[in-house]
């Protein structure tokens, strides 16, 4: 059973990273033949980095667009990041290669932020779910998968919170850590016996499989949108895609240009 879970989690992780890398590669390989930044847009690469940072860190456009969606969405994503950092303690060996990070992770501030972030993560998701159900416009555009993904992450959050806050669901985290470290070195160890933990891990694995084949592709997508990541310098610099170069060779031969 424990070995099965180790394999499942490893497979999910590989599938997720591989899938995301494949998508990012596809995006990079696809040319953007025209300059289409939504203006006003930065005129320098530094400006573009700043623009993307504002989008990725603060959800700047969403903030302008809709305050409720922004509050819930931002709360969820920041909480997710904090919870993720807290979880690093399970995969970092203080005596291992990444041991130097250990003090950064294993300190009361990061750990308690990560712990309580779980609450806000669930609240944020609940807000997004409520919006999806209650706002007629958003309900109209929602497919079953849109609800299911929110519920999936919510259940992951709730099961995680239970293991932190409900004494009867507490698990042996030392044993969990040896399972995780063992998994990473293919030296499979026993998982702590806990239904809540199994639910948590199963759904995390499901999330890993769903991510690269779903709308969760907004993760690489946000970096590759030409509307946001292009420098606004078309008058100064010619911007030509490989496939368009061929057209340049014949562009003088249209009949109306010769009369």
């Amino acid at each position, binding site marked *: 059973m424990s070995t099965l879970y180790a394999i499942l989690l490893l497979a999910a992780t590989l599938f997720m990273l591989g899938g995301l890398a494949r998508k990012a590669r596809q995006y990079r390989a696809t040319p953007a033949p025209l300059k289409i930044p939504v203006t006003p847009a930065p005129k320098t690469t530094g400006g573009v980095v700043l623009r993307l940072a504002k989008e990725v860190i603060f959800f700047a456009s*969403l903030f302008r667009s809709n305050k409720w969606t922004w509050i819930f969405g931002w709360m969820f994503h920041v909480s997710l990041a904090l919870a993720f950092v807290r979880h690093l303690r399970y995969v970092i060996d203080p005596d291992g290669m990444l041991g130097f990070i250990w003090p950064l992770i294993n300190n009361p501030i990061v750990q308690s932020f990560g712990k309580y972030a779980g609450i806000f993560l669930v609240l944020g998701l609940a807000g997004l779910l409520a919006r999806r159900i209650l706002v007629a416009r958003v309900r109209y555009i929602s497919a079953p998968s849109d609800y299911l993904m929110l519920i999936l992450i919510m259940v992951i959050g709730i099961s995680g919170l239970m293991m932190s806050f409900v004494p009867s669901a507490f698990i042996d985290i030392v044993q969990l850590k040896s399972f995780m470290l063992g998994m990473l070195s293919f030296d499979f160890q026993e998982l702590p016996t806990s239904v809540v933990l199994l639910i948590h891990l199963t759904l995390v694995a499901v999330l890993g499989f769903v991510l690269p084949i779903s709308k969760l592709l907004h993760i690489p997508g946000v970096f590759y*949108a030409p509307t946001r990541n292009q420098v606004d310098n078309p008058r100064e610099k010619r911007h030509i895609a490989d496939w368009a170069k061929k057209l340049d060779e014949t562009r003088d031969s249209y009949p*109306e240009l010769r009369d």
Partner: protein
Amino acid sequence: MADYEVPELKEYPVVPLPVEGTMEHLSPFVAKPEFQEALNYVGKKIEKEGEMPEYVLVDGWHDKAIEKMGDLLGRYRGFQVFMDSCVKCGACTDKCHYFIGTKDPKNMPVARQDLLRSVYRRYFTFAGKFFPKLVGARDLTEDVVQEWYSYFHQCSECRRCSVFCPYGIDTAEVTMAAREIMAHIGKGQKYNNEIIGKVFTIGNNLGLPEKALANVLEGLEEDVEYDIEVPVKFPLDKKGADILLVTPSADFFAEPHIDGLIGYAKVFHATNTSWTLSSRASEAANFGLFIGSYENMQRISMRIRTAALELGVKRIVYGECGHAWRVGYSFLNTLAGPFDFLDQNYPVPQHICEFTLDKLQKGELNIDKSRNDDKTVTFHDSCNVARASGMGNYPGGQFDIPRAVINAVCNNYVDMEPGTTHDATFCCGGGGGLLTDDLMELRVKGILPRASALNNAVNENGVTHMAAICAICKSQFTKVLPYYGFTMDQIVSVHQLVSEAIILEGQVDPED
């Protein structure tokens, strides 16, 4: 007059509840096969006895459509990324002027994208191939194509939704891809494609031949001289001129466009600038943009390069036209460049507002602002200028420069309310290749947010006139704002205001 209701103007913006299907009856006329073929597209006609022929999908349309979609996904990163990255957050749902005006949920940007995305998912993604119901994927059927044809011609490609999208998804790109796919299976739009055909055969959107154009310009010279007793010239095909002015052909005869053209000519006259129009490039507009066709957009742009070379000019200046400025500013260098044969001390191309402001700031124009004192002016930011191009050498110049020109020639100027100007400006309702009578209902409803903002500016700030720098905006406003109680002459060109305020050497004003 019409079998639909003109929406009511409200003081505060109202986001409607979606009402399904209010606009599904509306779609533009389909282009005839011969016009399709002129643009390297295809078409099929079915003759019907005693009736109008029908233009239908070509044989094998299903596979051809999917193949075209795959082709575009591989050539346009934006299209590929936008198909994948929407999370259905709903941020865009209340941003489209056509949704606000029609209440039809398929006019919400995300829903419009989903018409295409659902097919993308079905044929190009794992989840859509195996779990179509779960992720909202669907087969491509004739009904789906009809739905595309209707709703992708209810998007003016104004990009307002893209400003507000957390992932920068640009519905304009999706609409362009959809139109390109449809054009490849026999469903091209008559208005756009026939106009492009006219550009290729005659030289401009209006089909105004060289001789007629020369006559129009001659007439203009006479009119202006009669008015102010100054021989302001409108040169055509003058070799060796410094500047080639490329302007929308509406400037040659439509109101208030033509008053803008007179304004450009007066500015050139006052500053002793040698300039010319070109019969070859007698059109700034480039409808290749609207149908998402790189090839046609490049072909139209090449007229300008060729004209500049033939005439031996040093600079290219664009007149007041929104989408033309997008193609000029953002694409011309790419499509028809490099322009290393032009004077590199000036941007290529330059906008007439950039040119005029420079002359105003240098004090080369004799301006009497009080000549516009009968007006309180506001400015409509045209979508393609505001969100798809720039002016000057810093981000946002496209907002400041036209306003600076207006403020230099008018004493009374006010902005419309925030959220309806700058990069949040509302489309006029007629952009993106929708400025056609067969889409009148859409144009009347889509103007609602702009009309409301204008109405508030009229009531609160005593605004009398709205200036614009786009030929489509001006045409749409003069035709459709009267449905809301405004008059046609309330719409002015920015250079019309310049024209009013400028005093040329030797000018004699007519007695009132």
